C-alpha cells in the first residue's frame, strides 16, 4: 500500500478523522495510530513537517506543567503556606519558603502576607502524577498582583495572545499603555487606566477569537491604531 497524506497543512481536523495512511508517517500529540491509519483525537489545525504530522489544538484544557508561569488566587491558608487555585480542576500549594524571604515566626497570621482572594503571579516547580502542585514566587517578575483586572481566556489560545517571543502582548501593551501579564493557565491580568484597560480587553478577546487565522499581527496593529486614535 502506498503511504498517503489525507489532509493539507492548516486544515481543521476533528476527532475520528483519518489524517494519513501508511507506516512512514509519524504521529505526535493529539492523534493516535490505528493499524496503518493515523487518526485525529482533538480538534485542531494540522501542520505537516516532513513525515511528522502535528495538531495545533483549537481548544485544549489546561494541564499544569513544571516551569509554567501562571496566575492563581489564594483560596486558603495552610499550616505553613497557602492554597492557590489555578482555574481548572487543580490547586497548588505555595510554601512559606517559596513565598517570601522575610523571617516568619511561629504562630504568625499568614494572611498578612497573602490574604484570601488575592492573586499571585507564580511559577510551577513541581507536579505529581496526581496533580499535586507546588509553586514559587522566587523568580524574575513573580509577585502578588495588586489592582488591575483579570480576564479568563481559552488556555489553547495563550501562545497566540503572547505571540512570537511576546510580540503580540507587547504590541497591545505599548498601544494601550496597559501592563499585561498572561498566565499559561489562561488567566490574563491587565493594569492601566480604565479606558485603556477596556481597549486592551477587547484586543485580547479579538486575538482569542481569531487565533486560528493568519496575518493576525497586522490586523491587530491596524485595529489598535484605530481604537487608540478614535478613543482619545
Amino acid at each position: 500500500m502506498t503511504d498517503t497524506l489525507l489532509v493539507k497543512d492548516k486544515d481543521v481536523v476533528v476527532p475520528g478523522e483519518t489524517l494519513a495512511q501508511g507506516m512512514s508517517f509519524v504521529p505526535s500529540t493529539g492523534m493516535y495510530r490505528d493499524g496503518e491509519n493515523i487518526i485525529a483525537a482533538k480538534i485542531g489545525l494540522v501542520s505537516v513537517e516532513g513525515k511528522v504530522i502535528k495538531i495545533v489544538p483549537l481548544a485544549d484544557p489546561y494541564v499544569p506543567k513544571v516551569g509554567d508561569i501562571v496566575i492563581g488566587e489564594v483560596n486558603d491558608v495552610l499550616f505553613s503556606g497557602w492554597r492557590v487555585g489555578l482555574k481548572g480542576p487543580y490547586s497548588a500549594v505555595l510554601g512559606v519558603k517559596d513565598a517570601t524571604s522575610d523571617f516568619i515566626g511561629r504562630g504568625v497570621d499568614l494572611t498578612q502576607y497573602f490574604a484570601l482572594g488575592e492573586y499571585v503571579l507564580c511559577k510551577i516547580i513541581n507536579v505529581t502524577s496526581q496533580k499535586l502542585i507546588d509553586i514559587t514566587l522566587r523568580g524574575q517578575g513573580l509577585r502578588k498582583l495588586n489592582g488591575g483586572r483579570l480576564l479568563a481566556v481559552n488556555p489553547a489560545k495563550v501562545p497566540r495572545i503572547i505571540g512570537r517571543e511576546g510580540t503580540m502582548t507587547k504590541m497591545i501593551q505599548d498601544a494601550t499603555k496597559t501592563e499585561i501579564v498572561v498566565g499559561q493557565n489562561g488567566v490574563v491580568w491587565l493594569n492601566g487606566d480604565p479606558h485603556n484597560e477596556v481597549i486592551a480587553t477587547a484586543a485580547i478577546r479579538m486575538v482569542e477569537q481569531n487565533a486560528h487565522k493568519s496575518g493576525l499581527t497586522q490586523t491587530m496593529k491596524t485595529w489598535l491604531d484605530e481604537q487608540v486614535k478614535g478613543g482619545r
Partner: protein
Amino acid sequence: MAYTKRFDGRAIDETRPMVAKVGVVPRADGSAMLKIGGTTAIVAVYGPREMHPKFMQNPRGGVLRCHYNMMPFSGHGERVRPGQNRRAKEISRVIENALRPVVDLSAFPNAVVDVFIELSETDAGTRCAGVTAAAMALADAGIDMKDLVAAVAVGFVDDRVVADLTYNEEHYNDYSDIEDKDRPVADIPIAMLPTTGEIVLLQMDGKVKREHLKAALELGQKVCRDINEVQRRALKEKYQE
C-alpha cells in the same frame, strides 16, 4: 393497511432535516446544538473541573458525568415536571456509557467533565440527539477523543424498517385505523463510533424479529455515518470564514 408511505413523506432510510451548530453556549467550555426535525438538543460541557462531591473523585482518571433533561413544555403530552426522574436518570446513564469509550480523561485524575444535555423541543429520538450533540460539544471543549459518537433511532413500523422515528411513528398503533393492534412497532436507538463501527448504545422498545433486527442495525450504521458527516461539518464551520 401497511405502512407504505411515512407520515411526513420521508424515504424509509432518510433522517429528518438536521441543523448542527457548535459553540452555542458562550460561557461553557464546549457546547453544541443539534436539531433533527422536531427534536432539539442543546449541550454544554464544563470542565475538567474539581469533582464535587469529593467521595466521587477517581484518582485513576477523570470522570465523565452526564445530565439529561427534558424542558417542561418540550414534549407532545403534558408538561414534564422539572428536575430528575427515573427516566432521565437512566438516559443520563446510558449516554455516559456511550461516550465513555471515546473520551480520554486519564490526564485529569480526581477531576470531572460535566455534560449538560437540555432538550428544548422533543419529537422522539432525544437520547440519540443528546449523544450526537454531546460528542460535538466534548470535541469543542478540546477533550481528547478517539472518535466522535453518532446516534440515531431505527425501528419498525408495521413491518417496515425505518430510520429516525417520530413520536407519531412510535405510536403508530394508537393512530392507525387498523383492526389488528398487534402489528409490531419497535424503536431501537443506536449509537456508534463512525470510524470503527463499534456500537456503544443499543436499546429496544417493542417487538422485533431476529432478521428484522439485523436489517435495522445495518440501516442504523449507514445513517450514523451520515450523521457523523453533519457533526464534522458543524465542528469545522466554527473555524471557517
